[in-house]
């Protein structure tokens, strides 16, 4: 069997978008449509709302390792994570000039404070701090969140976006439902047959989609799913099935993901580029669509470390994911100085131990360049799983 060249071509196309730090694709889209483009930081914003107003949501996840940080480091002490440095760098070097605004979801104090810096550094763009509720009662946290989304919609309209209408929002929800369904299928295929969907490939496709309108991202997913499913040249190898946890904000370098795979791990579940999966299932398209978006956030979002777990047992979601993915081990892979991931980790470790599977932990930064130590650690971990599991 020979590899399907169409698959390689698709991944190459996605990789070009992934490498597009100056958002050329977004500039093209704006030139074609005349619409607004609004960036958002990890982890989640309801992209449906932006789309319904004709706005292109653009997912920003920091910088690639080859981005030289010149100005960004002057804004942050050494003990603060890397993502805000590269975000500032890309803002100041003009890479984000195409963006008419930025949304900062409430996930940690660093992103929170960055929102205020952005207000001062870029006074002409919209800055919206999306203060997602930690109270999940629809009448309380839901009402607050709804009001915040209405404010966001009004702010976008004031900048020239279309007014938000129920009908447009329903259509957008339907489009994103299809988009999420395909991502779920991709993840399910990877769980069943991880050799067919190398994570280093899937990751690039997911990242590429952050720059595309949903009308283009969905066909990209569909095509990748079809080609990966059909490619019989990819054969299973004797690798350990691992779940990677903790990489939901600042992203690991692609080389790190490749290192994990080369060291003998099949990644069968992860937290990468989580916006595509933050809402777990379809959002209903009947009734009040804005309320449907609110309800989805309240009741159907992933149990992120950034989210208060009120009623469920802390870590229960990780246990479920371990069971569902058939993971044989967990790699806690968090960015250095990431409060949500690292403060959560002792509780997540306990969940892995309840699930009776081994784990190991290491840290990275988005600009990490040396992976030998991680390769040895992950390789030893994978070997130990293959040698000792079930003994």
């Amino acid at each position: 069997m020979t590899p399907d060249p169409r698959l390689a071509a698709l991944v190459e196309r996605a990789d070009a978008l992934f490498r597009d730090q100056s958002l050329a694709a977004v500039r093209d889209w704006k030139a074609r449509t005349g619409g607004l483009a609004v960036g958002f930081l990890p982890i989640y914003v309801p992209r449906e709302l932006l789309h319904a107003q004709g706005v292109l949501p653009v997912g920003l996840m920091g910088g690639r390792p080859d981005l030289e940080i010149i100005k960004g480091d002057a804004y942050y002490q050494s003990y603060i994570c890397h993502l805000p440095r590269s975000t500032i760098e890309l803002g100041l070097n003009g890479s984000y000039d195409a963006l008419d605004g930025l949304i900062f979801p409430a996930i940690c104090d660093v992103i929170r404070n960055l929102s205020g810096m952005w207000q001062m550094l870029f006074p002409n763009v919209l800055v919206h701090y999306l203060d997602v509720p930690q109270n999940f009662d629809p009448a309380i946290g839901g009402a607050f969140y709804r009001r915040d989304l209405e404010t966001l919609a009004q702010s976008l309209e004031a900048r020239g976006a279309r007014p938000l209408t129920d009908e447009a929002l329903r259509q957008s929800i339907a489009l994103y439902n299809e988009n999420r369904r395909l991502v779920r299928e991709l993840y399910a295929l990877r769980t069943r047959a991880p050799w067919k969907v190398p994570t280093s490939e899937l990751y690039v496709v997911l990242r590429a989609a952050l720059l595309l309108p949903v009308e283009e991202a969905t066909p990209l997913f569909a095509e990748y799913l079809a080609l990966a499913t059909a490619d019989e040249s990819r054969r299973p190898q004797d690798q350990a099935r691992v779940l990677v946890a903790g990489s939901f904000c600042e992203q690991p370098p692609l080389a790190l993901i490749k290192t994990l795979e080369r060291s003998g791990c099949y990644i069968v579940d992860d937290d990468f580029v989580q916006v595509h999966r933050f809402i777990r299932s379809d959002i209903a398209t009947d009734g009040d669509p804005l309320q449907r978006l609110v309800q989805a956030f309240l009741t159907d979002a992933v149990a992120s470390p950034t989210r208060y777990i009120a009623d469920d047992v802390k870590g229960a979601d990780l246990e479920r994911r371990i069971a569902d993915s058939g993971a044989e081990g967990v790699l806690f892979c968090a960015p250095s100085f990431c409060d949500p991931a690292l403060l959560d980790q002792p509780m997540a470790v306990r969940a892995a131990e309840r699930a009776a599977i081994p784990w190991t932990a290491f840290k990275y930064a988005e600009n990490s360049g040396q992976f030998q130590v991680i390769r040895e650690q992950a390789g030893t971990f994978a070997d130990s799983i293959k040698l000792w599991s079930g003994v």
Partner: protein
Amino acid sequence: MSPPPAAVASPAQKDSSQVRQKEMIARHFDRLAAAPETGARSAYTFVPGNLTELLLSFDVLPVLPEINALQSAMRGKTAEYIAMAEKLGHSEDVCTYVKSDIGMMKSGNVGPTGQRLPSPDLLLLSYTGCFTFMKWFELLREEYHCPVAMLHVPYQADGRITDAMRTYVVDQLKSAVIPKLEQITGRPYDEDRLKALLARSAQAEDDLVWVLQSAKHVPSPIDAYFGAVYYVGPIFSAFRGTDDAVEYYRALREEIAARMREGKGPVTPDGEMERERFRVVVEGPPNWTSFRQFWKMFADEGAVAVASTYSKVGGVYDLGFRHDPDHPLETLAEYCLGCYTNLNLPTRIDLLTRYVQEYRADGFLINSVKSCNSFSAGQLHILREVEARSGRPGGFIESDLVDPRYFSAANIKNRLESYFQMLDQKRLGAAS
């Protein structure tokens, strides 16, 4: 058994207000220590966004883990506590208050007076101005298995409190916090009692603001950073709304008024400051493991902190907010929303610039602590902006809250000395 150390180590020279505060704190910890026998209920909660009056209206005793951590640092215990927490899997990268608290708990939960603290009947998670708070109490919940009341306080991202924010907090007080307090105490919410407590809070707040603003006088009779740690102690912790607090702040005000009349400077670790050479505004929390040494580095140079932001973490009263007994839940919401670390960066910059100008400061210093991203993320931007707006030079030093590994005395002293020399040079240059 060694004698119980002071709850907060104080300067050698003690004013009567300090003696009074020490007695108040001792009584509080006595009540906590006796709780298993008396049946008194306790709630662990945080300084920013604390709901002390509401807790006291139910006769629930507040326990502040942040204050326990800083007091552990002053007693030299945190190196051991942090090491224990890191051994248990807590990352070296995260907040050392959390790790100190975990280590203290694992070591028997002995508080600053040498007495064992009761396990909480409630974790009151007032999620105000700090993401770590949420994770901290998720961690404690796994240890104590007690109820948690979550109060999510929205961030003032646009520099103002909206009706939606206020309503959101009030609704949570009604539906999540008060029912939990009723549940653990078996008593109904008593609004009249809460109002009475809030009225006393406002009285104490008036006097606290007067004390803090006394630093506008030249020479300043107080140190509004190191000294203010003692001044804000009662109102930021277990005493807001009590007669004790009202009396303490009245007495403190009288003491400071007397110092001002006599033209005296602040009391420092080495006694009264003879000559005020530099007036500085300070941003960021102090280092607690070497608190006196740190303070002495300022005092030795004749540097007085005339305003600070740390003394506003439990409430920015000098901007006019007072607890309003006529609107008890709304005023608690406004209080939570207005705490310093819940203000956005532009507001913090405005406030610091205003302090530099109103308090006639020669400059401002930022003590950036590794543990606290809420404070620290963005401080280099603050430095540049406040310099540009105020025309006064800023200085930047780095340390930590309670991890002694991150207090490099020689480096900090060197930076401070250079900074004060630079202020001197500027002054000479201006005079020539």
